[in-house]
């Protein structure tokens, strides 16, 4: 029974953890501008994150080594530092965006300007990082974040022309009113959002936090293989809602409040309330994940003591660095920058971090010194190499496309 509960919680967690403020807004932007024509990217991204999250979880469970230790150990200090710099910047930018996202959702609920909610959100995130046990933190945010299923419900209530939606999804072509460059820029942004490295840092470190052993591998695999695809399903539902309501109305999404419009239209105030609850939980969960990930990456690169299973005093540098990250994030928000814009620029740093993260995972998952007989199977290796190639191409194309399209404008 306890085991079953663990599986259920794990799945819920993965759903809640997959969708963050960046996914919420990017998927709605894409839906409102490209309809369903980029849904295939979400699929590709979900398969990729399943593959590598599962691999990093297996490395952590078998060898006890979290992903960034592996990165430093295999790539050495220089490439490791390049990855650390990029990943850390992504983390700080995402922390900033998520705290902004919590505040924006609270503004949507209350009408009070989001800037006033920022200190409150900051304090809440820090208190959880400081005091709350890992498993409780993960399960509560995951469970409440599940209320984002309201997007799927809303899509059904909107009674869309399913044939037309499927037609857009399978046409695999650039819509007439948008340029090919912008289409591919968003394709890479969606792919990067699905495969964002903090997910594997968090996943593998979480495996160490929860003391996973080889016998937990099955549970980890079920969590990954059900949770991430369900998260991807939510992403597509978000895009679907935007494609059904906003695209025909000539509205292209720029803010979180617009993401809520189709849900309110479909389900009224009740659906809106559930949506806001889900957004608060999802962004709060993501804020926790990214704050912890920035601590994990730094601590694992430099070999500091880390983890929420230790008292803060036993992981002093880890906790101090997370406090600094949170304060830095709020300092960025205080300049009045649009928190949603911040996530869009993190795609540039993903270009550096993605290959340098997934290559060492793939190498070490094949290393018998670490893995014993639990090394990668043939099929996983073939898929891993194919994905490494896709990641490399996406990375090389990301920055030129961003410049050419003015970040998708």
């Amino acid at each position, binding site marked *: 029974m306890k085991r079953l509960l663990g599986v259920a919680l794990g799945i819920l967690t993965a759903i809640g953890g997959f969708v963050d403020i960046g996914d919420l807004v990017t998927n709605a932007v894409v839906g409102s501008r490209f309809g369903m024509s980029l849904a295939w990217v979400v699929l590709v991204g979900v398969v990729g994150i399943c593959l590598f999250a599962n691999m990093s979880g297996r490395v952590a469970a078998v060898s006890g080594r979290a992903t960034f230790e592996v990165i430093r150990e295999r790539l050495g200090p220089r490439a490791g530092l390049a990855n650390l710099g990029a990943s850390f910047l992504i983390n700080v930018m995402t922390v900033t965006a998520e705290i902004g996202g919590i505040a924006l959702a609270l503004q*949507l609920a209350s009408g009070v300007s989001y800037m006033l909610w920022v200190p409150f959100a900051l304090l809440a995130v820090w208190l959880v990082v400081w005091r709350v046990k890992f498993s409780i933190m993960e399960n509560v945010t995951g469970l409440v974040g599940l209320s984002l299923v309201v997007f799927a419900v809303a899509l059904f209530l909107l009674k869309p022309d399913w044939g037309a939606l499927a037609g857009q999804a399978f046409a695999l072509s650039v819509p007439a009113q948008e340029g090919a460059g912008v289409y591919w820029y968003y394709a890479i942004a969606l792919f990067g959002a699905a495969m964002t490295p903090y997910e594997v840092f968090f996943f593998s470190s979480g495996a160490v936090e929860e003391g996973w052993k080889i016998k937990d591998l099955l549970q980890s695999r079920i969590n990954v293989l059900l949770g991430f695809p369900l998260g991807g399903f939510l992403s597509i539902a978000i895009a679907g809602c935007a494609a059904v*309501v906003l695209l025909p109305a000539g*509205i292209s999404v720029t803010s979180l409040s*617009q993401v*809520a419009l189709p849900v309110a239209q479909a389900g009224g105030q009740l659906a809106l309330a559930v949506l806001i609850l889900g957004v608060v939980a999802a962004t709060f969960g993501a804020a926790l994940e990214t704050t912890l990930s920035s601590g994990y990456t730094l601590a694992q690169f430099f070999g500091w003591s880390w983890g929420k299973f230790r008292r803060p005093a036993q992981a002093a540098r880890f906790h101090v660095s997370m406090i600094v990250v949170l304060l830095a994030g709020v300092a960025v928000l205080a300049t009045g920058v649009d928190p949603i814009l911040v996530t869009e620029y993190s795609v540039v740093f993903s270009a550096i971090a993605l290959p340098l993260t997934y290559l060492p995972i793939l190498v070490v998952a094949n290393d018998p010194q670490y893995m014993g007989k639990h090394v990668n199977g043939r099929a996983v290796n073939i898929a891993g190499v194919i994905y490494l190639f896709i990641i490399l191409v996406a990375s090389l194309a990301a920055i030129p496309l961003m410049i050419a399209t003015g970040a998708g404008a």
Partner: protein
Amino acid sequence: MSKFPRSRTVVLTFLVILSALLTGCSQRPSAEALESPAKEVSSAVRAASLAVDLRISDSTTAAAASTTADDMLGDVESATDHVHRLSAQTQEERVLRNDALAAFSSISRALLHARDALTSSSGGPNDGQGQTQLTTVQGELRVATEQLDSLMTKAGIQ
């Protein structure tokens, strides 16, 4: 392992980004230059209209709808700033720019009214006065939208 860090590539990338940002400014108000701000404003006013419609049918809360109006007001402001920065040289360009700014400003005004009406519309559909107010701003938003639409058609932006 070369004994020197690869700082040159980093600097080069940075310069490329910088130059791209610089060339983005100092455009002239052609139809192409107006396209993106006009589309942004058109999208913003439509989103606000939808929010007002939803509020009239009591599908959304006053807080959420007024937040939408407020966000859209911000979008229109940034689009207006963008058009202000365009430097018109010919008479034709000047006319086009001024028309766009006029359309934007009437939309801004309509959005402001919408936001105020939405913020005070706490009574919902049973609040007769609030409903009348909302219907009025709904009409105002529609007129402003049409003004922008006709300008966009004239300038050849679809």
